[in-house]
């Protein structure tokens, strides 16, 4: 099938994306080192007054029910835990990336953020069940970033999505990823990968983004991380935290069993634990947003 959209136009959009905040670049570099510590994350936040204020606001939100307010950054970060702090840094320093409505996917404002956050908590829970060593510490961040391609792709995709949904419903295209590729010559995973390269993300995150729907095809050294992102993505969709008209429209790659000890019971535990953490994060971060308004 002849692509309806020029991939050159999509690549031109990626090339014009603004440079990411130094905070994000530093955070991702820190997270991709083997032996980073919480202090390394504290150091990123403490030199940015606005970010420090936000972290303190979130820590003091009613969700956490603290009797005495937290006034120091170290305490706030150790109290919130690194995942929420990483979420604040990425959400706060990436402009509209996670929050803009995804018209092409029928996804409302914050749909991508909610999906990615649930996927991130799920990916990090999946990582606990790893059979072999891998960059498990990156699983949360890989989950959080896996779908960034939808941000760039959505306005292009909007023009052809009715045709795509028709093909999927009548069975002439096997799944959503195939529809994206057939109609545009690219898919959101590939576009996300090119965005990650544009922004010079660490290599494991680039690969996890590229292969989050096809983890078995990832280079061997990045395969486990790609599977963690893949499974986190699946969990988010199962929990109803999808990005819109593509919810549950991608096949599961059951090659995960080589990397993770996953049973129906442990999967239920993952969904439960991810939902608890997700709710807490969404509530505390939205309090922070309301305070800002």
């Amino acid at each position, binding site marked *: 099938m002849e692509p309806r959209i020029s991939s050159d136009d999509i690549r031109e959009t990626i090339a014009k994306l603004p440079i990411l905040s130094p905070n994000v670049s530093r955070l991702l570099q820190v997270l991709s080192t083997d032996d980073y510590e919480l202090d390394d994350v504290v150091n990123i936040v403490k030199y940015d007054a606005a970010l420090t204020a936000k972290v303190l606001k979130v820590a003091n939100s009613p969700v956490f029910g603290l009797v005495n307010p937290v006034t120091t950054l170290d305490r706030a970060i150790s109290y919130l835990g690194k995942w929420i702090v990483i979420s604040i840094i990425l959400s706060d320093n990436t402009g509209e990336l996670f929050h803009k409505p995804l018209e092409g996917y029928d996804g409302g404002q914050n749909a991508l953020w909610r999906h990615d956050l649930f996927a991130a908590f799920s990916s990090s829970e999946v990582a606990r069940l790893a059979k072999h060593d891998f960059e498990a510490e990156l699983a949360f961040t890989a989950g959080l970033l896996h779908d960034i391609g939808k941000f760039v792709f959505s306005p292009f995709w909007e023009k052809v999505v009715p045709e795509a949904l028709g093909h999927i419903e009548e069975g002439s295209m096997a799944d959503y990823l195939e529809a994206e590729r057939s109609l545009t010559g690219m898919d959101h995973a590939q576009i996300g990968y090119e965005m990650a390269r544009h922004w010079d993300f660490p290599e494991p995150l680039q690969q996890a983004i590229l292969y989050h729907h096809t983890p078995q095809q990832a280079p061997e050294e990045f395969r486990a991380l790609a599977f963690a992102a893949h499974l986190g993505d699946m969990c988010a969709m199962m929990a109803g935290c999808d990005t819109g008209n593509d919810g549950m429209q991608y096949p599961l790659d059951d090659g995960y069993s080589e990397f993770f000890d996953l049973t129906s019971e442990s999967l*239920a535990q993952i969904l*439960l634990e991810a939902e608890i953490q997700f709710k807490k994060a969404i509530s505390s971060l939205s309090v922070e947003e309301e305070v800002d308004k």
Partner: protein
Amino acid sequence: MSNIVLGIGDYGASDRPGSMVKTYALGSCVAVTMYDPNLHVAGMVHVALPDSKLNRAKGAECPGYFADLGVPLLFEEMVRLGCQRQGRGLVVKLLGGASVMAGNDTFNIGKRNVLAVKKVLWGLGMGPVAEDVGANYSRTVSLYVDSGGVTVSCPGRGQWQI
């Protein structure tokens, strides 16, 4: 109007004219709706997992999360609003329980949720008169107090009645 919007693990019922009970994006979760056409009482629970044995603390904190606790609690809520304890005359429907496109059964939590909900309903002497379950798409469900009608919608698939 005072609509009730349920999140994951919530349950609720209403007899307020003109209102509805609604839940968004079920995924593999299951919504059980109960409706008394004589009293115009409408209730719903948004169940996420089959069995509270998985995590007793979560069951205590949010019983509607699990089929074994949530469905009886919804029924109690219907009784509190005047429905017969025998469950007679209640119109029960099941929605959701979707699955990702998987070749193995591990990820088929949607199917396990549907089976668990049915088992609990049978224990209460009830069964669904209609269901829209399974497949691989998420559902948003609304139950209307005045009519007992159930509307299902999904991004990209439009809206339909059950």
